């Protein structure tokens, strides 16, 4: 486990979800920095350090919503996982859709994990806590 704080890129356009996810992540015991972008275009700019993201820290983990403005989360997933420089970064998809088609397609495009956003606040919070525990405490993340 790295000593330095873990950098998480949260790609989410819903302010309520951003707030909830950030709060739940902050409750976890692993030191972390959460960087938020609100659409797929900014996500790709962040990852390729373009424009205002010139000094962005490469994330250790990406939390990716699927339905995003400008560039869809599905496209972001594809682009990241096809990039030699980025594809090692684990992507946890968080989506309200649990249709088999979305799920299979995400895994086929090498999403590391697919999670359905629960309908209730309590369950959503719990889900993010589990993500924190599993991905930041149990799993060994790539380190370059």
């Amino acid at each position, binding site marked *: 486990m790295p000593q330095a704080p873990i950098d998480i890129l949260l790609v989410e356009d819903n302010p309520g979800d951003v707030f909830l996810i950030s709060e739940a992540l902050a409750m976890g*015991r692993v030191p972390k920095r959460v960087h938020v972008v609100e659409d797929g275009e900014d996500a790709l700019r962040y990852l390729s350090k373009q424009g205002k993201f010139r000094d962005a820290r490469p994330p250790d983990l990406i939390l990716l919503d699927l339905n995003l403005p400008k560039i869809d989360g599905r496209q972001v997933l594809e682009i990241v*996982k096809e990039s030699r420089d980025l*594809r*090692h*970064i*684990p992507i946890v998809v968080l989506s309200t859709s*649990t249709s*088999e088609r979305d*799920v*299979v397609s995400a*895994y*086929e495009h*090498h999403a*590391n*994990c*697919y*999670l*359905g956003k*629960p309908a209730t606040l309590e*369950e959503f919070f*719990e*889900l993010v806590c*589990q993500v924190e*525990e*599993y*991905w930041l*405490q*149990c*799993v*060994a*993340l*790539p*380190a*370059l």
Partner: protein
Amino acid sequence: MPSRPFEILLVEDSPGDIWLTREILMQGPIPKNISVVTDGEQALDYLFQRGKFSGARRPDLILLDLNLPRVNGLQVLTQMKKDSGLRAITVVVLTTSEARSDINAAYDLNANCYIVKPVDLEQFTQAIRGIEEFWMSMAVLPTTLPPMGAEEAQAEPKASGTPAESNGSGLLGSKLRRRLMSPRLVRYPGRYAHSPVPGRRVGSRRFGGARS
């Protein structure tokens, strides 16, 4: 929603780790079948349903050791993630190797996640439970994928024989089992819906230690 057991393929050559992993998993709340193969070549034969594995069931989750005889875990990962019929299967790398090169290579080859096997029994138990809770009840996994080995020509003659499989009979003493498997309910989103109390969970979990 399938009401079938969760299918796990354990690719592991250490008899001790096979026994322990199977015990911990079989004590977990989710009904499951665990198939075991002990080298990388068998893992590929299983996944491509070759030879004695012609009747093998498609796994929902693969627990993959890296240091394996014949064909190593990274090679298994390379082969299966190249195959359009297999690549959506979740692979959790579970290995003693803490080498950065192994971790990065596994993610580069599209392993879903990498877990370093804890040496300590209690932590090992926590790690396996963590895998069960996260992948078998939290994560949404594909459920209706095409049969395995779809890209391979159906040329293999069907041979009889079934893969090694656990029937879940408990081998641990009841006291140790109780210690290892203190009751807790996990959240079930219902994909593998066998939950006695759907959607509710009590108790707290700590993955990977800090449990006193």
